[in-house]
């Protein structure tokens, strides 16, 4: 088992090396724009602060910095997810979508679901949801709007969508926007709101939850897949060493970009625990599902939270 886990990184590094030529350039470009933004904004103008990994930075700056991180890794973020999830984030995503069972089981077009995939970046979750709706539930009308704050990520999603059967079916939509404020999305209009590996990057998570509550129809569902907190201390010790020790180093070696990877590791550590996050969801007005109200994956490395907007 340990051997398997240890074997993976070398394969991942090999994979990541392939994408190497593109990433340093993307990073330096976005780094430059980020520095320009930073020069424009003096932190003193707005002294509300938030966390950027373990650094505390003014809120206005975090948005720019998060943008920089994801631009710098726009096409290598899969590699990053592989590293953080010990290679199994694809299985989690499959499971996430399967438990959501998206799409209507009654064949009429009026019962089709309106889905909003927030921080949907490369479309990973959205494509899976359309596949599920189509192939499992025989629903050919359910639609997904992929929204992301970062146009580069969204462009990558658009590009990848061309290789899916949904490219020009009107079932996919792309929207650049900040999850904390989605003015172009009508209140009470969405059946299912998903956010996978996105919410921990949001500056104001409570604002994003309130916005999710607003756009969902009564009875609509908020569903979040996110890295979380490991529930066994032994495994936790191993995972911390791996994530804090190895990952930034690999980021350095592979992408020449230790900081972005360091940020990812720290943002996970900072994210509220399962119970805390469940309480945040309930505070926004949602009702948690029967039972514990969330589902740990792989010992809590990741976790699925859901909330239903009451009628």
């Amino acid at each position, binding site marked *: 088992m340990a051997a398997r886990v240890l074997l993976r990184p070398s394969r991942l590094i090999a994979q990541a090396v392939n994408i190497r030529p593109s990433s340093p350039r993307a990073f330096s470009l976005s780094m430059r724009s980020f520095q320009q933004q930073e020069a424009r904004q003096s932190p003193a103008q707005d002294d509300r602060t938030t966390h950027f990994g373990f650094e505390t930075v003014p809120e206005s700056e975090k948005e720019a910095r998060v943008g920089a991180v994801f631009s710098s890794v726009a096409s290598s973020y899969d590699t990053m997810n592989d590293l953080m999830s010990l290679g199994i984030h694809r299985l989690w995503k499959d499971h996430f979508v399967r438990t959501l*069972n998206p799409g209507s089981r009654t064949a009429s077009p009026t019962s089709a679901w309106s889905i909003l995939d927030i921080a949907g970046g490369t479309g990973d979750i959205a494509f899976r949801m359309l596949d599920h709706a189509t192939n499992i539930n025989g629903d050919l009308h359910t639609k997904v709007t992929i929204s992301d704050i970062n146009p580069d990520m969204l462009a990558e999603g658009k590009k990848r969508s061309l290789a899916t059967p949904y490219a020009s079916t009107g079932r996919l939509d792309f929207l650049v926007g900040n999850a904390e404020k989605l003015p172009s999305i009508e209140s009470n209009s969405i059946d299912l709101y998903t956010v996978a590996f996105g919410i921990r990057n949001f500056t104001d998570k409570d604002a994003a939850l309130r916005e999710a509550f607003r756009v969902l129809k009564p*009875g*609509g569902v908020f569903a979040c897949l996110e890295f979380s907190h490991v529930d066994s201390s032994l495994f936790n010790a191993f995972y911390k060493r791996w994530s804090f020790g190895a990952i930034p180093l690999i980021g350095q070696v592979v992408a020449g970009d230790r900081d972005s990877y360091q940020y990812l590791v720290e943002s996970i550590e900072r994210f509220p625990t399962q119970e805390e996050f469940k309480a945040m969801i309930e505070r926004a007005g949602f009702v948690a*599902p*029967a039972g514990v109200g969330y589902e740990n994956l792989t010992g809590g490395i990741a976790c699925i939270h859901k909330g*239903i907007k009451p*009628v």
Partner: protein
Amino acid sequence: MSLSLSLRALPRSSSACSHIASVQVCRRTYYSIHHPDPPPFPPVQATILASAIQHVPRLGFTQAAVTAGAQSTGYLEASTLLFPRGPFDLIRYHLVTERLALKDRVQFPADSKLGLTEKVKKLVVARLIANKDIIGHWQGALGHMSLLENIPASLAELGNLADEIWYLAGDKSVDFSWYTKRAQLSAVYASSETFMTTDQSPGFRDTEEFVERRLGDAKTVGGAAGGFTDYVGWWAGNGLGLARAWGMKV
């Protein structure tokens, strides 16, 4: 192998009542008369499930019934994600609400001349009759209950029903024999309920006779001075047997 392991782990996982010392405390929670439990389901769940149960005679204990329940109360198809266990949450709702309804359905006057066994019989039959509208779907329900992940909750609810019946029949003893009585009555109830799923007689007369016979078989009903070893022995030996008597395919 994993099945027998998890069954052995049942006393711990299925109720808070595994420790002798906590008998007093945990029994009390079953006594729905003196200590009404907090509502067994939170409001939104209760709203949807109460409506879903109306659709069971037509749709069975299915995801479709849960969805129909959601839609007829203004909720969406997606809202059924509130119930991660799907049909089983609906089945549990039926088990819990019918157990709690028993005390209103059967009442014995203070000067009742009926013996303990007679009262137990009346209660068991009243509970079984509450299944009459959905009896055609009950074998399907038992199928869901026999899924490994649902067995602990199902057997716990069966135990709760046995406790409730003993209590309503007027047996207030708190001693070791409680475990034996609980086990015996659970077994009688489980086999009677399974019998009822194939009973074609008018008014389920055959089922009533079956209950009578089974209670007669258990001569020692209520009288056995069972001990701790009975309890352990029951879980070790009969947990699986009981699940089978209840029609579970384990």
